[in-house]
């Protein structure tokens, strides 16, 4: 075995609690153990489900770490203990989990990164609604702003993504029979996330994302010329995307959408903000918003730049041209800006100046009303 080997990450993808992700992951852990592989459970969330708890029996469990926060005690994965134990494979449930304040790292996926870096293979679980770039769409469908998200690049680094599928009808049956949650909790869950149409929509998103992950991985592997069967193998057109970052709250939505489209097109994605006199010239509130958005972009692995220029449209387009940008992404103006012509003016000017580029106006999605 190589001296410095990065561990392999396998994600069991689902679309709701109770589809059987943890169960399937534990099943695989047992198979590995039977083959003589050194497997441990780093963290698993039984949710009081009988089947799942039984499945964990016979596997070595690394005790959780107790962390005190505001007088309460929380259980978190003991990453240091796992690193010291150094198994070949570690099972880590609930990849998108946010650690309690006071933990060494903010997010569980950062803990997992550490395990992978030290050469430990990791099996983990997540639901599609936790993928960062789908956040706005998930809100549109469910009315819920999911806070615990996984940046897309983290998932792209996984070696394998497997869909754990079950039909919504079967899932709702399980829920009604109280297999998934306790009875009371089940009745509440049925009201929002577990509405049948919501489940169907989330399931479709999980299936499409998994298909994309499969295609993306085999496309990378087949860059030796085998690709190009049917109509799927078309690659190579070089796209470069530029996002305009502002203080507007919908900039987060714009960044997510542009990055998602960019990832699917294998494009390079950049983000800039333009101000005469730079960020210093902004009000404190505006500067904070802009900086938060730039930071958000960087967390999604987007290169950012602050540009100075009197005229927003020409500064943006000049930068785009100098950097061989092929597509500029702007947010659709707010309704009141339409009336005042401010936002329209920007779009018209950018479109007028960027004669050799595509300009994409991204619109906020509207929540589905029942």
């Amino acid at each position, binding site marked *: 075995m190589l001296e410095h080997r990065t561990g392999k990450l396998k994600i069991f993808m689902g679309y709701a609690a109770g589809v059987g992700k943890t169960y399937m992951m534990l099943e695989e852990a047992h198979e590995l153990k039977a083959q003589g592989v050194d497997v441990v459970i780093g963290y698993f969330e039984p949710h009081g489900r009988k089947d799942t708890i039984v499945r964990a029996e016979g596997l070595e469990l690394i005790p959780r770490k107790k962390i005190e926060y505001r007088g309460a005690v929380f259980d978190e994965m003991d990453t240091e203990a796992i690193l010291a134990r150094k198994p070949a494979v570690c099972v880590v449930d609930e990849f998108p989990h946010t650690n309690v304040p006071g933990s060494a790292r903010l997010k569980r996926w950062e803990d997992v990164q550490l395990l992978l870096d030290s050469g430990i293979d990791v099996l983990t679980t997540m639901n599609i609604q936790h993928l960062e770039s789908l956040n706005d769409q998930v809100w549109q469908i469910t009315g819920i702003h999911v806070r615990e998200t996984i940046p897309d690049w983290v998932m792209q680094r996984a070696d394998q993504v497997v869909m754990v599928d079950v039909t919504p009808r079967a899932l709702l049956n399980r829920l009604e029979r109280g297999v998934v949650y306790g009875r009371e909790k089940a009745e509440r869950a049925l009201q929002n996330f577990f509405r049948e*149409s919501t489940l169907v929509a989330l399931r*479709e998103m999980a299936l*499409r994302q998994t298909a994309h992950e499969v295609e993306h991985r085999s496309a990378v592997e087949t860059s030796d010329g085998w690709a190009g069967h049917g109509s799927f193998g078309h690659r190579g057109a070089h796209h470069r995307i530029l996002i305009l970052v502002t203080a507007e709250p919908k900039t987060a939505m714009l960044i997510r*959408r542009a990055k998602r*489209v960019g990832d699917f097109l294998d494009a390079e994605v950049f983000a800039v903000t333009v101000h005469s006199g730079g960020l210093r010239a902004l009000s404190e509130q505006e500067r904070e918003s802009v900086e938060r958005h730039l930071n958000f972009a960087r967390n999604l692995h987007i290169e950012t730049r602050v540009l100075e220029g009197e005229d927003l449209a020409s500064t943006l387009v000049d930068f785009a041209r100098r950097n061989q940008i092929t597509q500029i992404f702007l947010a659709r103006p707010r309704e009141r800006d339409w009336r005042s012509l401010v936002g329209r003016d920007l779009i018209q000017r950018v479109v007028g100046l960027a004669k*050799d*580029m595509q300009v994409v106006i991204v619109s906020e999605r509207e929540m589905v009303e029942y």
Partner: protein
Amino acid sequence: MPRELRRKTPEELLREVQSEEGAVHNARLKIFLGYASGVGKSFRMFAEAKRRRERGQDVVVAAVQPVMSADVGDLLRNLETIPQVAVGEDTAIDLNGVLRRHPSVCVIDGLAYDNPPGFRNSTRWEDVGEMLRAGISVITSVNIQYVAELRELIESVTGKRVSPTVPMSFIQSADEIEIVDAPPEEPMERSPEQQLDAVKREQRLSRLREMALVLTADVVDHQLNEYLQRHGIQQHFGTNERVMVCITPRANVHEMVETARSIAEKFHGELIGAYVSQPDISAADQTALDEKLAMARSAGASIEILEGEDPVDTLLDFARSRGVTQLFIGHSQRSGLWSRLWGNPVDKIIHRSRGMDVRIFPQ
């Protein structure tokens, strides 16, 4: 033919009636879809059959695979079986036996089989259709390789041609479809040639896996749209990317269509080309238009010719009704000068296109 001007075909009407009848009888079709043998379809299906039996449903098995794993064998031991009828080396489901026994659920491992000559139906999926019409629910399994419409694509991937097939429409008519997904086993380290063969095999399997996932997603999308229609919900969920290219005689359609095709493909989405009829169009424009529509069609777009007073409203109403997520429009150089005028079509489209992205192309 433009879809919105088309009447329902008799087959579509028949399907609607049948699905209503199906609902009356409560007979449901559930399909376990896999991308290769050995991914565990049979096990998952028979495990469900066992659970249903334990919950008190009257379950009968009418077809099993000739070779089965020990796990599957264990599950089968506790299930009632109606043996298949043997004709020489071939076998068929004992359809009359199943209809006489009339269980509430019939389990059929392997949907893609042709019946030997002399049977009422020439294929097994037709047998299943008959059971459903008789009010018997069916749980069955099938491999993506056997979907008729995918045969050529699959052949280009695997180099093999399979003979018994199941039509896509039958798969799509299922009340429930569940994919049994598992990544192909990693090739073990062997000699370089063996290694290469193993890698190629893995790539083939990945392609099949991708197709199975997309097919399942498409069936689910179909069900979602039906659900929304049934409940009178106008809005779309945007779960499937739908790219619509607005075509005019003078638009730079080539770049638009190329980009749209590539995006639709990458997202496994849908590609639509739309044109709003103009009453007094010159012969030259008509020729240009026909060429552009042909270009879009050959890129795989479904073409829609729309009628309406206001072209912008017509395009957007249609886009909204079809759940379009990305609208592609051309931008003529002239409108730069007119940018501050109301009534600029690009401006108007952006203003009215709430809930979808608009991609503006230089001309």
